[in-house]
């Protein structure tokens, strides 16, 4: 009985992971977007300091 439950858990775990990875892949920014994020954060940060 335990073995069946565990097998199902394994499959469910894999499903969640796959779903999670797919989501992350779609959301992941390009290196260019990352640069832009940092530059805009620092631009705002600088004007806060002034």
């Amino acid at each position, binding site marked *: 009985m*335990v*073995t*069946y439950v*565990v*097998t199902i*858990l*394994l*499959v469910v*775990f*894999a499903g969640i*992971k*796959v779903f999670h*990875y797919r989501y*992350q*892949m779609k*959301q*992941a*920014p*390009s*290196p*260019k*977007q*990352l*640069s832009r*994020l*940092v*530059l805009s*954060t*620092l*631009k*705002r*940060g*600088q004007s*806060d*300091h002034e």
Partner: protein
Amino acid sequence: MMKKIAVTLRPYNRVPFAYQKLKICRNCRHFTVLGERDCMSCGKASALQSVEKKAAGIVRRDHWLTGLVWLLLSLIGLLFSSSSLQTVLVIAAGAAVAALLWTLQKRLTPALRRMQLQKMFQQYRYELASGLAIDHQAAIRVFQEGDKPRTYEMLREIGSLVHNDQLKLEQIMLLQTFQLRKDMDLMIEPLLMDSFNTDLVSYIGEIAKIRRDLIKENTFRYVLLHEMRILSMPSGEAILAAVAGAAVRKDRYMTMYPYLLTRYARFLPKDRFLRLFKYAKSARSGPLYDEVMRIYEEKYKWEPDFQNT
């Protein structure tokens, strides 16, 4: 005029993307572009780590955790299996899940790392901004200690991420106190500002003389935009002529900026004018052609260099 000092500048380390210059402290999450290993904020030794390494570490830890859960479930399944059918079932499911997750992880690791970087930059935006402000203060301290070249190098690093006129101006002011040489790792486009600035224009003039290759579209656009104000500077005409001399370097620039060349062709040195002459001759018409031919008739008609072109 202030006496310029001879300096040696360390080469600038260029990276494909600006954020790759950032380091983060493992201990206090202080961000910096300056420190090599030790944290300037909390003082901990060898605590700095590049943000990319940090993100890679988080992703790796996540992969390990996934692997651990997989191992645990597979082991429990095997331990409790009461028949060979169950054993085969667990092994098959475990192997299939492992293959699937391993392939996905392998393929998605770069994207997952970028995701982590985004999280890091968003979560610690305050630390990021204050970290770079602390870097700037450190540069000012070095300046007050009298080490100008090192100050410039620090400002150059900070300037790769912080794009504001004050920082650009500070760099230009320092550069103007140095004896600039051809072999120095200099830059110009990152220092261009929106507004007119005489120090920037003087710097452009110097670069146009020693490193023509650094003068590109944005610089041409800048000098054309502020041409009238540059002309009101004592050496304004010479600077514009030097920039025109840089435009002669490529056919593309000569096509793009005929106005600049028409206005300042007269002030070009002979070798520059010869290049322009060859280009204008192939174009055969237009105001630039007329002006070049006029100058040729006046100054170079009997020069042997101009005969066989």
